[in-house]
């Protein structure tokens, strides 16, 4: 055992233990740690964005380099604050509309290509897709299962007709696929949360207490 003498490691360890104390029940130590975290995060965010965004990208070019065209984005950005003045609060729609227009324009065609067309192509039963599984002869089996899963899951979400007959069978199979998907996602969630616990315990047992390397 080789306990750290580093002040900041102690701060980090005490904060970790304070947050972990919530596992027993809510208590003042947890509340203190939570408030410190929120305060530090906000303070850090404000100073960071001032030094790394507002100053180098707006105020420095505008006031020091006299690039007066920067007045336009400056004024448009300031319109966000008009929502605090009820009489002219409608002006906030201008910056929101501009940024929404830009992002939607950029993302819709790209999104359709990446998330819909390519994914549909991946579902079609082709030799190329069989090989994508890297499972030898089993590739065709996995591709067929994927194909059935996609069709049946989509049929479960088809609400324009009563689910009976063939539609009922396919919807039931779809539910099985959906449940397997939820199970896989939950299993991965457990793994992720346990990994975070391991990370903190590695820190407490290592740099703080010096029990492990």
């Amino acid at each position: 055992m080789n306990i750290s003498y580093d002040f900041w490691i102690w701060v980090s360890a005490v904060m970790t233990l304070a947050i972990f104390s919530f596992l027993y029940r809510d208590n003042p130590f947890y509340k203190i740690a939570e408030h410190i975290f929120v305060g530090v995060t906000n303070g850090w965010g404000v100073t960071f964005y001032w030094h790394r965004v507002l100053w180098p990208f707006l105020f420095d070019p505008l006031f020091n380099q006299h690039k007066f065209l920067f007045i336009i984005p400056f004024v448009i950005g300031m319109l966000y604050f008009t929502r605090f003045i009820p009489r002219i609060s409608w002006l906030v729609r201008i910056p929101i509309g501009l940024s929404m227009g830009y992002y939607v324009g950029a993302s819709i065609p790209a999104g359709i290509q990446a998330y819909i067309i390519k994914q549909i192509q991946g579902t079609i039963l082709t030799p190329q897709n069989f090989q994508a599984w890297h499972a030898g002869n089993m590739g065709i089996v996995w591709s067929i299962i994927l194909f059935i899963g996609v069709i049946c899951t989509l049929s479960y979400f088809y609400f324009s007709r009563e689910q009976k007959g063939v539609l009922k069978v396919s919807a039931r199979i779809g539910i099985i696929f959906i449940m397997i998907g939820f199970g896989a996602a939950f299993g991965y969630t457990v793994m992720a949360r346990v990994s975070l616990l391991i990370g903190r315990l590695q820190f407490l047992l290592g740099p703080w207490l010096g029990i492990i390397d």
Partner: protein
Amino acid sequence: MKIVDSLSRIDRRIIYLMLAIVVIFPLIFRSPLSVRVMPPVEKLYYAIDEIPDDKALILNYEIDPQSQPELDPMGFAVIRHAFQRRIKVLIMCLYVQPLGLAQNALTQITNEFNSVAQTNADSIIYGRDYVYLGWVVSPLLVMLGMGESITNVYKVDYYGNKTDTLPLMAKIKNYNNVGLLVSISSGDPPKWWVEYAQNRFGLRVGAGVTAVSGAEFYPYLQTGQFSGLMVGMKGAAEYEEMVEEKLGIKIRRRASEALSSLTYAHLVLIAFIIIGNIGFFIKRRQK
């Protein structure tokens, strides 16, 4: 009846205590598990390994403190791999939180390599072998802009050097000079790279993601949109195994060390889920 009641109402604090015990003991009394490398990680390893000499690897380091235990070992392993194979690396972030962690990783790994380097050619030198581009505002503008000119998007690097004065950046102009981009992230950035950089510029993309979002990313591997994929601590351990086995880099493997704890924690949770369900079904039958 009492046993059944207690089975279905186990105090959550008992579960936490059991979890803490099974996680702590394997960390102290190490019992390493063998790591079997799965095809998604193997594909990523070879995708990086096969980057030609005249092209670079872009490492999008989106590792923040809340995903550090899972993703940091991935970042370390990928950087060690690239440096060992003398692949040119550009490191950049789309968000601000990872900046310090990326710098820590680079400092530690360059020190590891330079402490055993005999000559200038063996050393890992900033500006020649790698550049830390840092962060500039708006992910979408960065991803699209880098396709035209990287130095136009990142006019200065993380340390304030003008990027067009760095020797490496004279060779790496835009995505045409990039062999692969690996995005290690706890969020959506790997998908954004596919959406914007791959669709428009044909950039090859690999990913390292947290386990919680793992299921969401596998479809992109199957369609070939990802050139490889690491998921969670297990994925990181697999990459560490590849780096040690193929490149002979024997160094502390943080993800692999944690696998025993991870396995025992899963077994405990499975046991509690089974116990809880048995209690539930017995109670339902009794009603």
